[in-house]
């Protein structure tokens, strides 16, 4: 992964809708929060758009901790998107 890259992971139906479990993304200038990244990813392909259209039912973790839409994203981060958890 190069300088401004992040790793993005998808789980459960987000992974199925998008079609990949993970992808390396070059952070475009101005993509500094979870919300901005979500918007950028949604615009990147129809599959991403369909997955993220579920809006409030998509959860996020940054570096393996739950993260709110305004949480910061930095180069080198691991960002995961997934539905609300259903274990137990």
């Amino acid at each position: 992964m190069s300088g401004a890259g992040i790793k993005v992971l998808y789980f459960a139906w987000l992974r199925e809708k998008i079609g990949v479990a993970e992808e390396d993304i070059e952070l475009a200038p101005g993509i500094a929060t979870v919300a901005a990244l979500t918007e950028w990813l949604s615009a990147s392909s129809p599959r991403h758009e369909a997955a993220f259209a579920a809006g409030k039912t998509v959860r996020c973790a940054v570096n393996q901790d739950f993260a709110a839409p305004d949480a910061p994203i930095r180069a080198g981060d691991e960002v995961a998107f997934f539905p609300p958890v259903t274990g137990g």
Partner: protein
Amino acid sequence: MATIRVQTEAIDIGAETAALTAGRADIGGIGSFLGTVRDTAGGRKITAMSLEHYPGMTERSLAAIAAEAEARWPLLGCTLIHRVGRLLPGETIVLVLAASPHRHAALEATAFLIDFLKTKAPFWKKESFVEGDEEWVSARDADDSAAARWDIAAR
């Protein structure tokens, strides 16, 4: 110190209880919750349940949940084991054990641990129905309410 594990194998509650209590006599009681796969979902028969998780975050979140329980109750040990992969009706899914000198702490900590695991640990279930279709399980508001009664906002 908590025992935390994600595994594909069936859970042996007897062996896990023996491991938790081995070599000590200060424990007065062990609370336990063993989750199993129900053969129906929403009134429909299922043939299997598949569990996926987020390796790394799962272990971190289970460790954080166990640490929170250890901070709230005088525990002498606890065990959190969750299965992943394809499970059949009747099989074990999850085990929570909490050992304490006294029963109230053991029972309360056990309920706390399973309530928080259900709302915080990154596991996802998919049900396979007898008709051949599959469906990801939706999160239940009731699970958030169960976690909320312990006074920590579910994230």
